[in-house]
């Protein structure tokens, strides 16, 4: 067949020759019987019949004309599009925007849900282990080391279970250390994941035998490039880690970055060194210290659900054996990559909403395309009629129109793919100012291109078919006479329905966008229990510089003293974690005089902070009663704490907290509550009335702390260089991190809301632009069709105002219908958005008013130009035209 195809030209000439031969013989016969030569040729031609038709029929028997036909359709489509470049550009552009929006969201879905973990063997068998303790209610991927050990050793459903913990560490050649994110992993980690070394060797079970006895490390490819410039002699080299000497064993293969998609570590340490890397705090023997991630591999043939129920069986035994620590523990398994269930579940919801919204944008673009095609079909009415009159089949015409649409759609799809590449590469270049190794990588792979291709092909066929059917259903006689069909005047054309639909979808999108933007504004200005404007901060971790407690206390005291004297600084304080920043933790609370709950999951808890004197003054947190931390709260002094009002309401049944005592551990001496402050937000913005308590930093030494300064300067981060100088004067080796204004540091907290607002806002504007062009196109077309009618009206005395009113009325009906429909849809959609909204009800009347006004304004603007053109119609010219 293929061979035939290439010989097509040859076969065609052969056919011509064959027919010519026949004609010649025929003519000769006639000449022989006495007919004049010229007449003979004509007669034989006449006798022969329609040569073109015969050839067409014969070509049909050759069987491969569909390819040829498609080629001709393509040529025809190309010519026809070249003749109307404005239509082609608009159609391709609107589809590119719609498909681009859709493919971008799809590439995010692809990157975080569909793509298997890179660099890992058989990633489908891997899972992340989540623990759920009754009272907190949500599953987090954290287990204690003893629990990890028991799950690993007691199960029969797993090939293996590896433990890991994220630790920041100061790494580098002596005297040139920098903060890097590392992971302490159990010895089976690399074997379990099936990671190959790029050079040297990786950690093995032998490297995790003796506590504190394996000062070795493995670099990731990026860590090796970033920190050591890809030094080929790094294997076996000695490197300083938190002031100790570690040996580099090897480098992991390129492309591997652990099992978390968003957190990419630079270096791996042996779990045996956990205590040394985390300031002598041994977390491996405390069953209540849930500080470790666990990633496991299912045995072949075991499903995740089977493994989950098996592990829950072990969990129930643990709850019986250790009710204090593990009472009420529940295990949930999730695919790895998105911090277990912690990010995965909210992300699924978020991405689903965004995908739905982007589909809506695409729908608007498609409807736009369809209404443009309809208008175009109107313009080509005469051409279509002529072709139908000459005997072209309706099927052929429809096929040609669809081919043309396919060309437009594929061009739009290509544009959309380019847009996606552009957006995702911008996303990859973005580094959120947070204190974790967060990387946003959204690779655009074949799957994304395939998606764009399928979407464009489907849109071409789905949204091109209706206009094509309409276009070929022409009434021949009036079309040929170039009559505009005044006789059968209809108020509602298919086009009009489309514009109304488009307006209603734009209203819906706009409504969602405005709602989310308003909610973001609200949450940014909501009371969070402290005032961020004017606050500057720097963080340090003294463990990483090898400080012991006495030296660390001395350093913290001196830094605070000096910073407080800096010009422009009103007050300064130290706190282990700024509320709403990434490191916030909570602690169990045992109230003195209340019975200790039997199960660990029944113990109430509260957010726990440790702060220096002046903390509440600096943060501008209102003190309700009692006192702030002050010079009395020294090392070894009476144990005290300050709680928020929610603490009193929730944990003390509303009693006055002052003078009451509680502890965080049944074996420890309780602390007395000496102050009560207003309740704010501590972990995320959606929380309501969460209990929190603060303990004095001078009593409870913390090596990692954030220094917060209330400044009089604008912007607040301009004092950071002076703080840096102060620190350098005391100890030049201290590395500061997370520096800048507190507002910037909290960016991550607002990340989801901000992303939602930006995406929805962009989609809303996109939909608005698309429907504006839709309204404009349809109105302009309607006016051009009505030129004659308007001419007649004006000739018999209609004024410009009459004409304007007439055009505006028909536009008004379309836009009004769309508005009402869209606002109805918006009421329904608002309910879906309720979960991510903060401080705005989904039926917010102000939002309705804003959307109404915007849509009306855009609609009016899009109608104005065609309407004005209608008033300028010269009746004489309009009537003479036809």
């Amino acid at each position: 067949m293929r061979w035939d195809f290439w010989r097509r030209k040859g076969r065609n000439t052969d056919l011509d020759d064959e027919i010519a031969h026949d004609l010649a013989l025929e003519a000769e016969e006639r000449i022989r019987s006495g007919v004049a030569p010229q007449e003979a040729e004509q007669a034989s031609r006449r006798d022969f019949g329609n040569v073109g038709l015969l050839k067409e029929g014969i070509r049909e028997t050759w069987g491969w004309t569909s390819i040829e036909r498609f080629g001709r359709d393509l040529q025809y489509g190309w010519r026809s599009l070249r003749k109307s470049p404005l239509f082609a550009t608009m159609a391709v552009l609107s589809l590119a925007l719609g498909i681009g929006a859709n493919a971008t969201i799809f590439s995010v879905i692809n990157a975080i849900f569909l793509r298997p973990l890179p660099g890992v063997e058989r990633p489908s068998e891997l899972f992340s282990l989540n623990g759920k303790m009754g009272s907190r209610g949500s599953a987090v991927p954290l287990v204690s080391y003893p629990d990890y050990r028991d799950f690993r050793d007691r199960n029969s459903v797993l090939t293996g279970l590896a433990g890991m913990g994220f630790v920041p560490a100061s790494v580098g050649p002596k005297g040139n250390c920098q903060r890097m994110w590392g992971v302490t992993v159990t010895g089976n980690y690399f074997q379990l994941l099936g990671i190959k070394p790029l050079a040297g060797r990786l950690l093995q079970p032998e490297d995790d035998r003796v506590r504190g006895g394996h000062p070795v490390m493995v670099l990731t490819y990026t860590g090796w490039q970033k920190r050591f410039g890809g030094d080929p002699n790094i294997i076996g080299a000695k490197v300083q880690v938190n002031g100790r000497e570690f040996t580099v064993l090897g480098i992991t293969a390129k492309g591997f970055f652990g099992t978390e998609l968003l957190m990419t570590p630079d270096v791996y340490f042996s779990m045996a060194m956990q205590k040394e890397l985390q300031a002598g705090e041994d977390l491996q023997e405390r069953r209540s210290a849930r500080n470790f991630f666990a990633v496991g591999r299912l045995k072949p043939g075991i499903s995740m659900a089977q493994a989950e129920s098996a592990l829950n069986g072990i969990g129930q035994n643990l709850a019986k054996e250790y009710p204090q620590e593990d009472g009420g523990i529940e295990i949930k398994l999730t695919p790895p990559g998105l911090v277990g269930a912690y990010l995965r579940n909210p992300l699924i919801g978020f991405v689903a909403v965004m995908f739905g919204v982007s589909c809506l944008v695409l729908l608007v673009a498609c409807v736009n395309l369809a209404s443009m095609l309809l208008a175009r079909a109107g313009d080509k009415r005469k051409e279509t009629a002529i072709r139908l009159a000459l005997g072209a089949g309706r099927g052929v015409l429809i096929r040609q129109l669809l081919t043309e649409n396919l060309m437009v759609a594929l061009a739009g799809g290509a544009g959309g793919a380019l847009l996606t590449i552009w957006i995702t590469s911008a996303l990859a270049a973005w580094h959120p100012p947070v204190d974790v190794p967060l990387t946003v990588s959204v690779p655009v792979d074949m799957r994304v291109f395939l998606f764009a291709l399928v979407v464009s092909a489907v849109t071409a066929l789905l949204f091109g078919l209706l206009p094509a059917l309409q276009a070929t259903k022409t009434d021949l006689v009036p079309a040929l006479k170039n009559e505009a069909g005044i006789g059968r005047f209809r108020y509602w054309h298919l086009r009009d329905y489309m514009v109304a639909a488009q307006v209603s979808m734009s209203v819906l999108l706009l409504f969602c966008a405005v709602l989310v933007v308003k909610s973001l504004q609200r949450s940014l200005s909501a009371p969070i229990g402290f005032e961020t404007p004017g606050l500057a901060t720097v963080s340090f971790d003294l463990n990483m510089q090898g400080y012991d407690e006495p030296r660390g206390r001395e350093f913290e005291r001196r830094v605070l003293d000096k910073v407080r004297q800096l010009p422009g600084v009103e007050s300064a304080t130290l706190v282990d974690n700024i509320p709403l920043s990434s490191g916030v933790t909570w602690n169990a609370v045992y109230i003195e005089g209340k019975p200790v709950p039997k199960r660990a999951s029944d113990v109430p808890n509260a957010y726990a902070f440790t702060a220096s004197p002046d903390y509440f003054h600096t943060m501008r947190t209102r003190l309700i009663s009692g006192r702030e931390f002050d010079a009395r709260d020294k090392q070894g002094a009476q144990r005290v704490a300050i709680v928020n009002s929610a603490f009193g309401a929730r944990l003390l049944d509303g009693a006055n907290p002052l003078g009451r005592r509680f502890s965080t551990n049944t074996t420890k001496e309780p602390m007395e509550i000496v102050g009560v402050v207003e309740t704010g937000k501590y972990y995320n913005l959606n929380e309501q009335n969460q209990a929190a308590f603060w303990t004095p930093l001078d009593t409870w030494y913390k090596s990692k702390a954030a220094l917060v300064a209330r400044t009089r300067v604008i912007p607040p981060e301009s004092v950071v260089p002076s703080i840096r100088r102060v620190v350098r004067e005391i100890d030049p080796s201290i590395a500061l991190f997370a520096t800048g204004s507190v507002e910037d540091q909290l960016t991550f907290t607002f990340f989801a809301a901000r992303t939602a607002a930006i995406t929805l806002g962009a989609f809303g504007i996109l939909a608005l632009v698309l429907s504006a062009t839709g309204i404009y196109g349809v109105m302009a077309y309607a006016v051009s069709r009505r030129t004659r009618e308007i001419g007649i009206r004006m000739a018999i005395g209609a004024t410009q105002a009459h004409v304007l009113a007439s055009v505006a009325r028909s536009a008004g009906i379309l836009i009004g219908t769309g508005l009402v429909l869209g606002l109805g849809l918006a009421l329904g959609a608002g309910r879906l958005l309720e979960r991510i909204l903060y401080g705005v009800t989904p039926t917010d009347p102000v939002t309705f008013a804003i959307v109404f006004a915007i849509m009306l304004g855009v609609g009016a603007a899009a109608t104005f130009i065609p309407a004005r053109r209608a008033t300028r119609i010269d009746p004489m010219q309009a009537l003479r035209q036809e």
Partner: protein
Amino acid sequence: MPKNTPNENHIELLQGTLDMLILRTLQWGPQHGHGVGQAIRQSSADLLLIERGSLYPALHRLESRGLIESEWKASDLNRRAKYYRLTEAGREQLVAEQSKWKLLVKTITRVMRPA
């Protein structure tokens, strides 16, 4: 274009018999399209007139089914002409169609026999 009004004396060709007639004609040796048409006409004493609009598509159809094959040769008048020739498959097909045809004629004759 004016449609050919069939001559009173001409017989309408029965559906499906053209292929058989072509094969039968080519049994006597290779022939070009025009020649096939003439041969059928002559052997039917001018009663069967094959239109080119049916003849040529039929030839091409038979060729694509492998029942006949073609070759370009110089014709009697020293013109380049396309000669069709029966293939082995075509010969078998002709035998099969001939016996089918005989059966049909016999059956129809029996039915139409005056009672």
